[in-house]
């Protein structure tokens, strides 16, 4: 709220529609996140987690990283949550509330979380008070059609938005090829490890 007010009072460029939608999605995300950690029904928690993950994907879109957003949906919602739901359904048969899903440490948890948030919020507000994100730098890019066609009159030029996908691809496969390979090895190891751990004798 402080930030929005600051933005308004500063009279900076206000993207009204964007901001309204941002607040809408942020509030939905936070409410769902609260439900994830408070609800007594484990399936509901997982479904709320879907909302949180989708909300984070929306944040990625706001930040102009479509590729990360799509990956978020593909991997988190399409795979991880499904895996979690599988885990739930395979280990618990009952429907409805699961009774005691929380420990007696609610107070401690709340205290730690609040302390942490207070500290983070203070340092963030202190550090990046009114820093604005740069405007979407992906301006329109002119793309001539790949191969010349029969049209003689004026060369057809379509406009498309510049892409972060290509930039991400370049970054991964040029500068960060070693982490990339490491991640692939990690995934393989995790695959084998999961099979070994979960396999019946």
């Amino acid at each position, binding site marked *: 709220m402080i930030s929005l007010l600051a933005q308004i009072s500063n009279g900076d460029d206000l993207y009204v529609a964007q901001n309204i939608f941002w607040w809408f999605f942020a509030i939905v995300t936070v409410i769902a996140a609260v439900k994830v950690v408070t609800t007594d029904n484990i399936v509901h928690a997982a479904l709320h987690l879907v909302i949180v993950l989708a909300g984070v994907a929306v944040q990625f879109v706001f930040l102009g990283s479509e590729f990360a957003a799509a990956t978020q949906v593909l991997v988190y919602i399409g795979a991880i949550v499904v895996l979690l739901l599988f885990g739930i359904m395979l280990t618990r048969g009952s429907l409805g509330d699961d009774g005691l899903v929380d*420990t007696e*440490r609610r107070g*401690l*948890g709340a*205290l*730690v979380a609040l*302390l*942490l948030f207070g*500290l983070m919020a*203070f*340092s963030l507000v202190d550090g990046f008070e009114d820093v604005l994100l740069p405007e979407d730098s992906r301006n329109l890019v002119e793309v001539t059609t790949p191969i010349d066609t029969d049209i003689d009159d004026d060369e057809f030029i379509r406009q498309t938005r510049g892409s972060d996908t290509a930039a991400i691809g370049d970054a991964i496969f*040029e*500068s*960060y*090829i*070693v*982490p990339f390979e490491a991640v692939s090895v990690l995934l393989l190891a995790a695959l084998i490890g999961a099979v070994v751990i979960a396999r019946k004798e």
Partner: protein
Amino acid sequence: MSLSSLLLFAADAGPALPGYTFAGPWILRNVWLLPLIPALSFLAILFFGKRLPFKGAEIGIASVLSILALAIVANIAWFDHRDNYESEKAEDAAGLLLSDEYATVAIDGEPDSLLLSADAGEGGEAAHGSTAVRNEATWFQSGGQEFKVGTLVDGQAVMMLFVVTFISTLVHVFSTEYVAGDRRYTHYFAFLSLFTASMLLLVVSASTIQFITAWELVGVCSFALIGHWWEEKPNSDAALKAFLTNRVGDIGLLVGMIILFFSAGQTFDIVKINTMALAGEIPQRNLTIAALCLMAAVMSKSGQFILHTWLPDAMAGPTPVSALIHAATMVVAGVYMIARLYGVFFVGFSIEGSPVNPMALIGMFTLIFAGLLAFVQDDIKKVLAYSTVSQLGYMVMALGVGAWTAGMFHLFTHAFFKAGLFLGAGSVAHSVHSFDMKKDMGGMRKFMPTTYKTFIICTLALVGIFPFAGFWSKDEILVGTGGWGLFGGTGGNGNYTLMLIGGIFGAALTGAYMTRVIYLTFFGEFRHVAHHDDHAVDHGHADDAHDAHANHDPHEHGPAITIPLILLAGFATLIGLVNLPPGFITGNLESWQERFFHFYEPSAAAYFPAIAHGTPSYTLAIFASVVGLLGVGLAYFYYFVLVDRKSKAMGESLTELPNGPTSKFGILKAGHTLLVEKYYLDHLYTDVIAGGTKGPLAKAVYWFNQNVLDATVDGVGRTSVIAGKAVYEHIDQTVIDGAVNLSGVVSSETGAGLRKTQNGKIQQYAAYLFAGATLLAGVLIFVI
């Protein structure tokens, strides 16, 4: 592609630094073929080997023959390049073959001062380039750092290419008969190929990271081959021991290479590291530490004292593999690394102008102590193994005293006669199904004349008898220690008198233990008794494969075994002549003398230190030979005269005198036991270092506690009792006791409280973790 086009100078210009060029004969720019071919052969044998008529051996032999041919071509091309580099440059300058840009760089980049400084020591050698040929490509880049792979070909590289491929070829051929019928025949050849490929990759490496990769690959292959018959516990233990001991050194390698990487301005480039080290652009301190770390790697890989213990155990592998490991591949990797990064070692250890340095010292100790150990081994391969350790000591010592050429020349000659010895030992063992000289050999000269003759020749070479190969290289090492005035020598890089004495003493030792081996193996009477069952497994052969041998005398083998032996014996005889000292026999014929030095030492390169070369001296050569012969003579007297006479008297083939000197004199007996126990090094590692903390150390501490600390405490106690009584009555009871009780209560209550936090619930720990992190971050933000 015809030979001439292989040798042709080709234009592939790139920016060149002093000391190397990106242009050169085709074969020298494309030596990556050499490691590639056996690597492909490895895969081919693994995938298709079992289905082929010769179970994959044919692929291995074909690949190794082809790379031998390539290596020979590379050597010829290198000779041409070495001698005609000046004219090549002239052609470049004329713009016949190269772009102008390259020509200028090549000429500007090689200032005359560099050439001259290298020439100063050896007086009159023509100012040839001996410029290394290089080829490289970017492997990958990460975080702004480019990782390059490439080949760096200079004299030492082409020399090693020839040695590795030649020995490997003979080992391949030898193996076809030696491991015939083995249950993992195909895998054996696959790993031989990979072993060769790894070593070749190591040889041509242009960057340290590539070097480390190849180094580790060599280690893996040796692990696989030493443990080839892993069904028996000792074999797999030996493989593990070799691997783990090498890991110890590899830490040194990694640390050293990382130090060099950062010291030389973040580069893996071997040439650049050397150049910077020599130009004084890297602090001396860094170089010394890096050289010490690398020395650890050399000690483990090249079996230097005290990390040599894996090498004799590694005899568990098949004998041809031992030959390959000891002659050409694994153990010389360490020596090769010193030679490759010689600038680092030269500056780091201040080799020039000093009387002693760690490398020379380690080498000298190794050569003497390993030589002593060779006396008490019954296993013929173990004697040879300790002999290798000893000879490696020579090489390391030579490099340590700055006699680069001598060290590499010894590596070169040693490869041939040691391979010959190992293959000869393998040939004998193949006949008697055992490696035990005392139990199962004796009198073999009658059964195996070819093996006997070649073994004798290789022994002569090893002992350093004129004119066999070992004589020349060993003499050159002794010369290189720095011209001891007594023998009239001059030059050298320092005044390494101690090393000279050690080297001469080592020669005597070598002569003595080799005489012992010869007597025990080839003379006396055949001692083989019919306990064939124990030994069939030593080979890893299926029993039925050797039933034919079981009950009759040993005999000579087929050509697959004898031809390599004969070839190696021939080389052991003649190869020393490639580095005749100036003026010896050849008079003033310069083109006949010091060919090895001429072609293989990178004498004019910017990445190589300007080392000085000693002048050979007849006195020294004769003295060293006499000392060596003295060792031979003593052993001869003991075995061929005393033991022989005694055994004839007793009517059985003895292996030592029943009550010889070691059982008579206490000191000798103790020494003997020390040697049998290998200086207790294995005990040091397994019992003291590993078991020490729980057993003896605890006892020692307990004793110390009881007798020293307690006594002190008691004494202090008694005196304080008197004082205490006084204090007790006045202060203690009231003030102190109260405080003590209070603190006791406090800590007990606190403990009881804190105990609850240790409840094993991970999430609670997580809560503490987050809370602690929050607090710390808070301190960081608000306070600091």
